[in-house]
């Protein structure tokens, strides 16, 4: 279980998070929605300790994340970055198998490669891409390699920052199914950021909407359509008119 209370973060005068309270149950899928630039990516980075919150507390299974032993803590996580963040000096398969080629989870090279190719297959990429460099792939393919890297060692908690942006509708469907499968079959906990309402309905157990640095609304996905909250309604229907101003 991940539990955030009163998390704030500013960059200079720019107050991005203004007191986030959020609970993500283990073995569930939480989807974060919210306008562009509201701090969704920053929120995930705060949990991982890539960005240090100014105030507030983040607990993972009742343990403060800042006190956790760093290596053991990070070994439980997988993260897909919004920009994929692949290492351009390494081949695609070496990116996917990064954890399997060094450190505590090191495996023999042939085995690591086999696992990498299997993970690539699960994100819809054939073995022929394994020996290419990331720069030789399209944006959507890079995104999927990033996804394969995030799930390579079957972590128990996985963060997906916009997993389906830049993908065609069919591929987006494949990725949605994959994320759902990871939660239901492998028992992982997932936090996904997405702007794609089809994805939200396909992936989410629960949804949280971020607005003006706070969690505006959170609840099970089944209540998303029926909630009277005008912010949520404007957002999920993509209306220009409403309480959320277009100029941000």
């Amino acid at each position, binding site marked *: 279980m991940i539990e955030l209370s009163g998390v704030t973060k500013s960059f200079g005068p720019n107050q991005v998070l203004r007191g986030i309270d959020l609970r993500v149950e283990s073995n569930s899928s939480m989807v974060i929605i919210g306008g562009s630039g509201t701090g969704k990516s920053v929120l995930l980075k705060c949990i991982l*300790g890539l960005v240090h919150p100014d105030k507030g507390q983040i607990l993972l299974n009742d343990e403060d994340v800042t006190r956790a032993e760093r290596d053991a803590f*990070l070994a439980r996580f997988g*993260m897909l970055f919004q*920009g994929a*963040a692949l290492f351009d000096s390494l081949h695609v398969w070496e990116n996917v198998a990064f954890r399997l080629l*060094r*450190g505590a989870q090191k495996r023999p090279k042939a085995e690591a490669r086999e696992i990498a190719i299997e993970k690539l297959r699960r994100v819809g990429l054939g073995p022929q891409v394994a020996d290419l460099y990331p720069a030789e792939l399209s944006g959507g393919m890079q995104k999927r390699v990033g996804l394969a890297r995030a799930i390579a060692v079957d972590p128990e908690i996985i963060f997906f920052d916009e997993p389906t942006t830049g993908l065609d509708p069919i591929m987006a469907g494949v990725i949605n199914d994959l994320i759902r499968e990871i939660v239901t079959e492998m028992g992982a906990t997932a936090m996904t950021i997405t702007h794609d309402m089809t994805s939200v309905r396909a992936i989410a157990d629960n949804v949280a909407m971020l607005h003006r640095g706070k969690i505006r609304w959170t609840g099970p996905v089944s209540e998303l359509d029926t909630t009277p909250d005008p912010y949520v309604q404007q957002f999920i229907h993509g209306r220009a008119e409403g309480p959320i101003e277009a100029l941000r």
Partner: protein
Amino acid sequence: MSAAAPIAALGRATLGMLAAVGRIALFAGAVVSHIFRPPFYPRELLTALIQIGWLSLPVVGLTAIFTGGALALQIYAGGARFSAEAVVPSIVAIGMTRELGPVLGGLMVAARVASSIAAEIGTMKVTEQIDALVTLSTNPLKYLAVPRVLAATLAVPILVAVGDSIGIAGGWLVGVNRLDFNSATYIKNTIDFLEVWDVGSGLVKGAAFGFIVALMGCYHGMNSGRGAQGVGRATKSAVVAASVLILAANYLLTEVFFTS
């Protein structure tokens, strides 16, 4: 604006500089301490050795051969003023090994390597690759900085040794072909007057300069600002800082080695 404003600005600048010196010292300490602690990344070290050492050979060699040749011409012209043309071989050798080999080699490596390290690591920073390393339980300092700093510290002395030899050969070429030295006498004079410490001190300088170059590249890369502009600024700072620090360290080391 009050009369104290310029003083306040000066004070701020001084404090800012002291803070930067402190951060760089801490960074250097962290890098050095990680050199001896596992995990080690031999593949990254090998790549860095090739990038920093092997691929710098042409530029260091070219610099050295022209410098050695010019040095021979200058010393011949200067020596002629008091009929001491015969000192050309030994002064070329001493000048190359003690000063010009390490300093020019170091500066050329600074231009080539500090910039490329800073640009590479800076780009990794702005494209979140450094964050990705952290989430993959890999310490970026250990994975990126340590192999490069270690490789430069090991490779630059070798580059300096090669540069010394090529520079002396440049002097010999000019001496024999343009200044009518006898080839055998030139070589004999070079060897007879050269001491081990002339060469050794230059190699120690080379190691120090290599350390400085890679350290500046890594430090500025890892502290790069956001976007292409941030990377550009980091690259520029890395080259400037490495060059200035090389010249300052050269003076200090010369002071330590040769004044007693």
